[in-house]
């Protein structure tokens, strides 16, 4: 079966890969482009750990046909930090012990970023809704909710600077 070429922007860089026609985006990111940030969890849209932003919209990389991403702009958890400076969400996840085994963390951070990008001042219910598609089996969710709310409180100051 002939491979299909796919080109898109990944965390601000132009990238290209050859994919099998039915490959999902997660396979291309991990095997083709060595971006191991998003994880393969369930493969059925239940767990959310493969969450990425495609043209700013939260999507599941394992259910996205890679070939449909031609020309898109894709952001993964790997692009959240700016060099050595962590994203406020990443700092808040550390400070609030929001990561334990860490497997859900890429999806949680990405879903949280999708929320804060569109609503910099979310309430608790907004946060719960935003991470409703992400399963965590360690923390019981409360530290994650607290971390996202804390990150939101630090954001406006950073955005002013």
């Amino acid at each position, binding site marked *: 079966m002939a491979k299909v070429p796919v080109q898109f922007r990944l965390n601000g860089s132009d990238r290209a890969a050859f994919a099998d026609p*039915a490959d999902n985006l997660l396979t291309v990111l991990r095997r083709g482009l060595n971006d191991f940030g998003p994880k393969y969890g369930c493969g*059925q849209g239940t767990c959310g750990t493969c969450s990425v932003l495609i043209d700013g919209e939260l*999507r599941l990389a394992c259910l996205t046909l890679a070939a449909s991403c031609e020309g898109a702009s894709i952001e993964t958890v790997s692009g959240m930090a700016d060099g050595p400076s962590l994203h406020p969400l990443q700092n808040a996840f550390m400070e609030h012990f929001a990561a334990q085994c860490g497997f859900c963390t890429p999806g949680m951070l990405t879903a949280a970023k999708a929320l804060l990008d569109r609503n910099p001042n979310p309430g608790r219910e907004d946060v719960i809704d935003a991470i409703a598609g992400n399963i965590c089996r360690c923390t019981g969710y409360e530290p994650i909710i607290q971390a996202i709310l804390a990150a939101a409180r630090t954001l406006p100051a950073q955005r002013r600077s």
Partner: protein
Amino acid sequence: MPLALRVAQSLSEAAGILAADPRVTLLSGGTLVMRDVNEGRLTDGTLLRVTDPAWRQMQVSGSRIELGAAVTMAAILANRELAFLHAAARAVGGPAIRNMATIGGNLFAGTPYGDFAVALLALDAQVMVLAGYGSARAVPLEEFLAGRARGESRLVAGIQFNRPVAPGDFRFLKVSRVKPKGLSVLSIAAHLPGSGSRIGQARVAYGAMAPLPFRARGVERALEGKALDAAGIAAARAAALEGVQPVTDAIASDWYRREVLPVHLGRLLAERG
């Protein structure tokens, strides 16, 4: 032979490709088809993508609403004209799934998925179907679902239905054990024209109470000409279980679904419109 991929620029081209080869699977939002690929249930044949912008169009301003089949749940939620459908759209998945899952795809979701189709069934929706090259034909959703169960393969171009006259005439409820995102114990949609006084032409549909979403015709008859008072609601509850064949799955037993359905139906009807 691994899966191949074809891209159709237009809906009619896609319908022609689908009609010509039974091994072609149409890909919409991907939440059902890519899952089958990932789990090894779909391993050969051809995936078909459609890039026709008409597939995502929405006509929502008038009394007749026309939605392209590739309109996503998120697009429904972003549209204030469709506020009456927001509860049904929110019943589907989490935020990422709602950015992907389409209203056309929901018609192909097996129980306990497919809650949005339940809402469309209570709205007497017409499915615009393309079977090969040619123009789209309107098929009542109930008939379409029965055809799908028989394995008919047709392209859904769009979905049309009338806007409820009063917002309180349309009601939707999904019962799940995990909130805010969980599989359906059951879902109920009710379109109750005249809910402020006497109901005429009620439409009530259930999800997860049979292998397919289905119309609760007993409840519809029981509500005809009635008010939503204690007597009307009691009559509806008494007819609630007519025709149900719920399954036992990891979410609930068939016994439990039968027990709780009349209770939830009564609560939905008692809501202030």
